[in-house]
């Protein structure tokens, strides 16, 4: 296996006596007195869940805002120009670390700097070309893969289990998102396997769709809408409008289910966001991004909104109750 440069450097730097000192607690000893983190999210600021767990995680690791941490949080709402602007400002300052949320933001960060470490929270960094290897990211990027598209089929399967009668579903995605193609492909494959007709509706960028879209989907007999998680932040609008047209909404993150979506299935977003704090901590203490493999989620949560199901006239089959991690309402 390849030697770890960090270890070698340390071995060179330390005398025999100092080795013990530098071994495990050594990383902590290298922690800077103050850290400046630039947080940029492709989403709107509507969902506090995309930042708060990070803040908590940092606090647990000893990074407290106002004391030794300055956390610049910027939400660009899918505006690429604005995102680049924010990142340019980060690089100019410069910040010690960038946390980029969503694939577009991560790409923009990668373009903006090759030196400042970037912690990303993205759907599939391997597929979208952010990194070439999960085990060794090799660039200044590392972080968490949310495995968004992977579960597209699974969500459709669970939808079918709840709505055995559904024949036509639609996928709502943002055309500007690099993941959208994967989402569409995975969902289409699953739809084909399940014998469901899939319609794809792509908006130029993640924004609240207007009433006309739902009216049109309802007119076409679409029973359910699969929403790309990139629409987090607009979830309440989407869920509210879908409800009005009796269209079931399914998506990745629990936040949708809480807003009234029928079901969500995906990684535990809060836990992953919290985990990003661990990456930030390690990088601030001097670890190289290339030495920190990109982590994939190993736990997925199925959250079912019973109230929504009831409103849609659906009953919850026993198998779904077994699968469900949480049933709301």
């Amino acid at each position, binding site marked *: 296996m390849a030697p770890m440069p960090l270890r070698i450097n340390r071995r060179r730097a330390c005398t025999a006596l100092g080795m*013990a000192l530098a*071994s*495990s607690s050594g990383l902590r000893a290298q922690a800077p007195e103050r850290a400046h983190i630039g947080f940029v999210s492709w989403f709107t600021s509507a969902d506090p869940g995309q930042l708060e767990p990070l803040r908590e995680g940092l606090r647990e690791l000893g990074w407290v805002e106002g004391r030794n941490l300055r956390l610049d949080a910027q939400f660009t709402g899918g505006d690429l120009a604005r995102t680049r602007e924010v990142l340019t400002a980060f690089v100019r300052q410069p910040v010690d670390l960038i946390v980029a949320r969503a694939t577009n933001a991560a790409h923009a960060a990668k373009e903006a700097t090759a030196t400042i470490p970037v912690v990303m929270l993205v759907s599939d960094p391997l597929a979208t070309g952010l990194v070439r290897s999960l*085990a060794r990211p090799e660039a200044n990027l590392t972080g968490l893969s949310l495995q968004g598209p*992977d579960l597209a089929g699974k969500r459709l399967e669970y939808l079918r289990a709840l709505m055995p009668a559904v024949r036509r579903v639609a996928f709502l995605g943002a055309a500007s998102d690099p993941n959208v193609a994967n989402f569409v492909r995975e969902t289409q494959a699953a739809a084909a396997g399940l014998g469901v007709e899939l319609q794809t509706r792509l908006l130029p960028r993640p924004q609240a769709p207007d009433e006309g879209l739902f009216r049109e989907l309802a007119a076409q007999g679409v029973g359910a809408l699969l929403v790309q998680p990139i629409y987090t932040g607009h979830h309440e609008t989407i869920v509210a409008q879908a409800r009005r047209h009796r269209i079931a909404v399914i998506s990745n993150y629990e936040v949708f289910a809480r807003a009234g979506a029928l079901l969500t299935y995906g990684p535990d977003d809060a836990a992953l966001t919290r985990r990003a704090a661990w990456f930030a901590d390690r990088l601030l203490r001097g670890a190289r991004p290339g030495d920190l493999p990109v982590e994939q989620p190993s736990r*997925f949560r199925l959250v079912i909104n019973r109230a929504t199901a009831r409103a849609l006239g659906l009953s919850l089959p026993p*198998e779904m109750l*077994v699968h469900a991690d949480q049933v709301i309402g």
Partner: protein
Amino acid sequence: MTSWRVGSLFRKYLLAFLAVVAVPLLAYGALASWQQFREHRATLAELQRLQAEAGAQRIAQFFDEIALQLAWATHLPLPAEGAEDAHRLDAARVLRQLPAVTDLVVADAVGQERVHLSRVSLNRSGRLGDRSADPAFTAARRYGVYYSPVEFRRDSEPYMRIAVAGRRRDDAVVIAEVNLKHVREVISGIRVQPKGLAWLTDRQRRLIAHPDMSLVLRNTRVPDALAGEGYVGRVTEGLQGGPVIASRVAITEPGWFLHVELPRREADAALHATLWRAGWITLLGLALALVVGVALSRRMVGPIRRLHAGAEVLGAGDLRHRIDIRTGDELQDLGAQFNAMAERLQASYERLEQKVAERTRQLAEANDAKSRFIAAASHDLRQPLHALHLLVAQWRGETDPEERVRLAGAVADALGHLDALFGGILDLTRLDAGAIAPNRTVLAVQPLLDRVAATWATPAADRGLRLRVVPSRAWVCSDPQWLARILHNLVSNALRYTRRGRVLVGARRRGGMLWLEVHDTGVGIPPAERERIFQEFYRVRAAGGSQGEGLGLGLSIVERLGNLLGHPVEVLSQPGRGSCFRVGVPLTPPVPDATPPGELEPDLPAPADKLAHHLVLVVDADARVREATAGLLDQWGCSVVAAAGLPQAMQALGSLEPELLVLDVADGVDAALADVQALRHRCSREVPAVLVSGDVTIQLVARNGIVLLHKPVAPMSLRAACSRLLDTALTPEEAAATPTA
């Protein structure tokens, strides 16, 4: 430098003390530390072994639980084909129980996959495929449980498959895909001491689970140093570098190894704290020992330094200095000794100074006396010489034979006076030079008194004085010759200073001594002069007293002879009424056979006719003395050959052989003796010789026919000596052959 040496003594004391304290202290400290270190490590290793075994137990438990759940699923009867949905619910329940399992496959007894549940992909059921050749199926069928090798999906995440077969032949086989990231929770839950950690490897040394997930996701391979079948408490380099104490135990079921490691620094932190403490205590002990050592050495060396300084001051001559040491031990004694020594030195120094002052005074006095002596002697010698000059001049011009005879008698008187003067001076000089050795013997007093009476009766009568000698039968121990001299001098002195009345000589016993007393009715001596009457040439100048013919040497000789013989000499006197001189002589019992003192008389004149016709050689460098001596010998009837030195003597003698040698001792007695030997050699016989010396310190015992006389030599003394030598030298044959006159 002296202080350097003292300093080294201080260092020696200090080092010795430190060695005595420090060596055992350090040795004990080192031993105790080593012991503690070993015990600590042993305890640590044991603890680590227990923790590793407990950890391995938990890992095994984790897999046991999965296997147990899967085994439960195998017992569920598989429904007919196409009706698997009911079974799916059961399988879903199993899946729900096992969060680490991502996919669950149920195969029937012949290996047909019937149900496939997944957390990621679509669930399926029905005839899904043939699994009969799958190693998971075959191995599970054979062994009951199967654990696949670990596989890293997408090169990052560790996965493995666990398959469990039912006990009965027609039971299903359940295969589960396990995401091993979940083992991390178990691994992180294993508490390894406060700062240690545990991790898992498979047989290929690949890291499977570690609290730091990134190490696993990076597919870390464990270095060889950490491999092996299992060990406890090994000190090695840890997985992330740095020395650690590691243990490794095997987990038989999946065939993995659980490692526990503790950074050595953490492991030894408590030990280090203890050792530091022990070190500090040791250092403290050493410092204390140093302080005590310095103090003790100071106490030891301080007094020695003071002794040293004191000795230096004393050595420099300040004897009044005293050393002050109050240590109450041997050093204080030593200081006291120094002080006592200094005191004694000071005392003897003072005594010495006194003695020097005394001696200086004595020397000055002696010098004064000598000056006085020379002045007096020259005056006293001039008087008879002056008289001689006048008499000789008168004699030359005198034609009357009678008057010439009278003048010759007066010349002889003057010469006798001179001779007596020289005799006195000679005696005095010999006494002062210590040249006289007393020859003590036992003798009767009466013969001595008889001689006094015989000698002095006439002179006393001439002066109109009565001399009375009281007889005595006592015997005393003394030198007869010198005792007689004392008595004669006292009598002479008494006669000289008495104008009328009498002189009484007697003996009186008192205090074991016989006091020979000479009383007179003379002028007496004033008390102030009593000390000085014994000085040379001192004469009491009594009113109207005659200076007479006294030399002033008599009493000096008496005093010196008294000192020499150990006889006290006393004087009692009343000015104008008389004096009493007395000398104390030790009494002895009478000795009937003792030699009569009269026969010891030294200056018995020898028969004069012995000298006639003998050939005498006179050698003297002084022409006048040579001629006078030759003339005198010629007058005595000798044939004389005179020479100035030995070579001239040899020449003058020619073939003649002298019968007597008269040699002047000019260059020391040894040279004179050598000359005698040379002449004797020439004559081939022991020719008798008379040596005449002017140096009174030269002494020679008369033997071997050689006699030493001191100048001035009275003609009678020379004649006596020559006669005696010739008499004894002549053998009977020679005597017979010698023609008699």
